[in-house]
């Protein structure tokens, strides 16, 4: 039996404007890791995000995480696409 989990993708600044929304809900299989989400699932489901993903960092539950991480996603996780920051 394949179980699934629902995760939230948070968008900010230029990515938010391009997608015309600040969050996306996504159902992924239980064995999905960060790398698969960033390199395969998101570009496939949301082609408009592809360019943004190239020059962004990824945060999982408010912590930066390597885009190539094997960390498995869990129900309720928040994955933020951190486009280049410009504070200060």
């Amino acid at each position: 039996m394949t179980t699934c989990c629902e995760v939230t993708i948070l968008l900010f600044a230029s990515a938010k404007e391009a997608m015309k929304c600040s969050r996306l809900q996504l159902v992924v299989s239980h064995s999905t890791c960060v790398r698969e989400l960033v390199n395969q699932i998101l570009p496939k489901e949301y082609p408009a995000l592809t360019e943004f993903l190239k020059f962004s960092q990824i945060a999982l539950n408010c912590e930066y995480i390597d885009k190539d991480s094997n960390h498995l996603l869990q129900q309720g996780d928040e994955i933020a696409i951190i486009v280049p920051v410009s504070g200060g």
Partner: protein
Amino acid sequence: MEHSFISEDRKQVFVLTSEPLTVEKVTKSVSALESGAIASFCGITRKYNQGKEIRFLEYESYFAMALSELRKLGEEIRSHWKVEGISIWHRLGRVDVGETSVIIAVSAVHRREALEACHFAIDQLKARVPIWKKEYFVSSEPEWRENPEFQS
């Protein structure tokens, strides 16, 4: 609008706010009898960027993560320098030309620690704290800025 973290001992103060900032308020938040020095940095909204005249800026943030990154930054500073108080305040929403967008203040027994920690704090803030600004120009379309310190 205001999001903040203030440690129990009040030695770490991080504030994201849509209210105007003043150096007095921020330096006061790190003043302590033990300190012989307070170093502060103010970031001001410039009138021109790359030759284009700016009308105003608009800031947004991933609040929860910004406060979490600021807390980590505070811990990193304490592991490198002997400092007393660390206070970082950043504006949100519209900020007009000439207004202050960020203020950092660090107190320490001696000036060197305070100055170095303050310098480190603004460099790190610009590199990794999830805050974004959009520049609204007088005669062209608005643009999102990107700090060169950010590493993708």
